[in-house]
């Protein structure tokens, strides 16, 4: 049985246990009329039984599935001849892959295969142990489910507090769910860090952080003529900053002015249609923005540049930056709106009462008072722009140019992560590991920006509360 069937089997067993638990408790009480003498309602007995049936079985299934493939693989390697076991990990991986492909065939005809007989024997072995494992897994899960049901049923009595037991279990489950966020963060940090450490053992960190040449093409085989691979990430950082800067130059004034106008000047009617407009801009998927940037904005900028006699790359940083700016406008505007609205009304009214015009009040009173909130908003927007992927993947270039000219093509950290990881390649080459090192940089930078921005915003809110 495969995992999804097993899950259905477990669910069915749990459902049955629910019914069984109810029946048992009613019988124990001595009939449906005497249910009131039980410590808990029959339903609660039933639910408790169902949980005792389902939870351990699901946990066993989860643990088994998590380790099944690696255990099977090490068992398989164990029976291979010694000279194959001694192969380097990449070649061993290829060899194992061959075996897995052969083993995926429904029927193996061992007699007719003279060539690669070893592989066929290994495949046969793999088929056997896979079948055994599947059988063992199903048996184990059913046994676990039935034993735990038997155990909990055996403890039923009229004084047995099923509700308290049930609620304790549910509470633990709820707590585990809330811990998933922490596990996710931990998983991100560990996976990215682990691969990065491997990368930094091949490429020294200073070369990565301060090198100015990026060309991650490495030789696949030792006899191949190819670049030795240069992993200087400065051009990527510079490109990311350039595109982010263009996006901010475009989005901060527009977003800020939109927020000011909508919160201070606009009629409720205009506001009621402008808010959905901003929501549309915020809700459009980034891949759509990427399409817009690559196929509408970039050609437009190139043609305009040609008319003015400028040479513009067809994947210019400007196009990607402007469209990223469009994407960020609603973000900047809604956060600035919050910041402006958090300024106490008394400040505004005082200024207006002294005879200042509304624009003077905004420029000289409201904005200075709201500046920490606005700075926080801008920092969050910067972090968003740095981590944005699809727009730059589709509209920015691949080549790592170290330039500050927005009309040229640059590449970014996220573009390189995607490029390095979306081919088929072995997992432990410096090329793929470099993507994780870039991911680490990205994670650390955006995390620092977010933490700092949230701190600024919170501190400022406390000031006025």
């Amino acid at each position: 049985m495969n995992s999804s069937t097993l899950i259905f089997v477990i669910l069915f067993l749990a459902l049955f246990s629910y019914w069984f638990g109810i029946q048992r408790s009613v019988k124990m009480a001595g009939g449906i009329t005497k249910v009131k003498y039980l410590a808990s309602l029959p339903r609660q007995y039933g639910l408790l039984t169902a949980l005792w049936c389902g939870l351990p079985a699901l946990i066993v299934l989860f643990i088994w599935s998590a380790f099944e493939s690696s255990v099977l693989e090490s068992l398989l390697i164990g029976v291979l001849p010694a000279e194959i076991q001694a192969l380097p990990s990449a070649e061993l991986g290829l060899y194992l892959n061959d075996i897995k492909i052969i083993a995926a065939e429904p029927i193996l005809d061992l007699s007719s295969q003279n060539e690669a007989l070893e592989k066929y024997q290994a495949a046969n072995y793999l088929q056997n142990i896979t079948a055994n494992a599947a059988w063992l897994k199903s048996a184990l899960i059913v046994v676990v489910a039935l034993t735990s049901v038997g155990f909990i049923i055996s403890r039923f009595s009229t004084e047995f507090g099923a509700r308290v037991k049930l609620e304790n279990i549910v509470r633990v489950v709820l707590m585990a769910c809330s811990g998933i966020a922490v596990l996710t963060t931990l998983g991100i940090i560990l996976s990215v860090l682990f691969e990065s450490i491997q990368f930094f053992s091949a490429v020294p960190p200073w070369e990565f952080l301060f090198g100015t040449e990026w060309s991650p093409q490495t030789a696949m085989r030792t006899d191949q003529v190819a670049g030795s691979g240069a992993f200087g990430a400065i051009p990527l950082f510079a490109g990311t900053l350039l595109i982010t800067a263009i996006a901010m130059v475009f989005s901060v004034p527009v977003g800020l002015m939109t927020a000011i106008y909508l919160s201070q000047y606009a009629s409720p009617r205009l506001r009621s249609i402008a808010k959905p407009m901003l929501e549309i801009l915020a809700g459009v998927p980034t891949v759509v923005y990427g399409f817009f940037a690559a196929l509408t904005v970039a050609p437009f900028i190139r043609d305009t540049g040609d008319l003015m006699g400028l040479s513009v790359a067809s994947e210019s940083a400007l196009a990607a930056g402007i469209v990223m700016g469009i994407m960020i406008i609603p973000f900047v505007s809604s956060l600035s709106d919050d910041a402006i609205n958090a300024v106490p009304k008394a400040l505004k009214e005082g200024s207006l009462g002294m005879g200042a015009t509304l624009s003077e009040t905004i420029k000289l009173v409201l904005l200075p008072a709201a500046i920490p909130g606005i700075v926080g908003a801008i920092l969050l927007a910067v972090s968003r722009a740095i981590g944005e992927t699809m727009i730059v993947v589709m509209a920015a270039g691949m080549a790592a140019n170290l330039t500050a000219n927005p009309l040229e093509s640059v590449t970014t950290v996220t573009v390189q992560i995607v490029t390095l990881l979306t081919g088929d390649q072995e997992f432990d080459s410096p090329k793929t590991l470099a993507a994780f090192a870039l991911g680490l940089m990205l994670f650390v930078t955006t995390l620092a920006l977010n933490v700092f921005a949230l701190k600024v915003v919170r501190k400022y809110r406390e000031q006025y509360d």
Partner: protein
Amino acid sequence: MTDKNPADSNLAEQLSTTEKVALSLRKRHRKEKRFQWAGLMAVGLGFLLVVILISDIVLKARPAFHQHWVKLEVEFRQDWLGVTSSDLAELKKANYRSVLRRSLYGMFPDVKGRRDKRSLFKMISTNAEFTIKQYLLDTPTKLGKTAEVWVRFDDDIDSYLKDDYTPGEAGPRVSKQQAQWLQQFLNKEIVDKRWNSEFFTSGDSREPELAGVRGALTGTLLTMLVTLLLSFPLGVAAAIYLEEFAPKNRWTDIIEVNINNLAAVPSIIFGLLGLAVIINIFGLPRSAPLVGGIVLTLMTLPTIIIASRASIKAVPPSIREAALGLGASKMQTAFGHVLPMAMPGILTGTIIGMAQALGETAPLLMIGMVAFIVDVPAGVTDAATVLPVQIYLWADSPERAFLAKTSAAILVLLSFLLIMNSVAAILRKKFEKN
């Protein structure tokens, strides 16, 4: 200012404050107007951008919904097909390409050279051979007879017909000769523009005239299903725990900070997590909606938890107190009274989170959902792609006809998002009323 014009300061000294203010008033009001204008321009720019974005995509998408077909007179001659009887098994293996070629050449007897013939044949979709095969299999009585069969044009001809073209003149990827043949087709009135329903019913293809979104839509549906089944219970459970049960201590503080930070982590990082942990350590299959759903769950969980917590917090404490006072346990209060009242808000947050996940592309590229997949996936562990990734793949394709297909796929995606957001808005309104 120290370097003031002496005449000005003289003038200023002679005036009273009221007069000074009155004098500066015009300038200040002009500034006020300018500022207001700037604000209005910013809002206007926002509207303009939305209009440009949507109309650009709609205009580009329009051609994708129609397809040009041509009526060919196909001679199902047995010697061309290489069959001896009308036996179905034999008909299935017959040589339809030859029949198609010869029938087409038969319509243009003056086309002679090999190269000319090839470029004539290229005007018809590669799929035409299967179209006539299907036709003959459906009506085997036509064997040995001539039948009129509608087949698709190639995507280049199709795009050419959809553009403003001058009859008989060469267009992009259409030679002058082909354009003239096309004119002959048009003169015979055997060209038809039809609604392209295949766009919704077929999977991906390398041939733009055959490519459809069904595979991607199914992949999206499966991925969203996994995401919903995982993220909704997990998110609600976490929110209930944090709001109703969690003691105020270090651990809950850590969880809170964590959730807030996770909400701002770039989505591509979740893709790295999926690749390194879910695929490489747990060994789940690459490109599968299951993995995509898990990754998107981790990504949307913070959104759902934050929204659910806000919604649970908004339930008046009197409800809890009344339930507890009547002897309900904390658990019964939470699940029986607080949760139902918070449900509209939780659902709104979930829909918004799902809408985010629906449009997400970057993490799915990392876990290999970017492969070219023709088949429509049948389960959560089959290789699949999703709508946003399909858009990305098509946008990258060089064929011109894919431009329209991409835009059409975007329209499909945007309409899904629109529906989800409208439902969320309606729910929110209902919630606010209560």
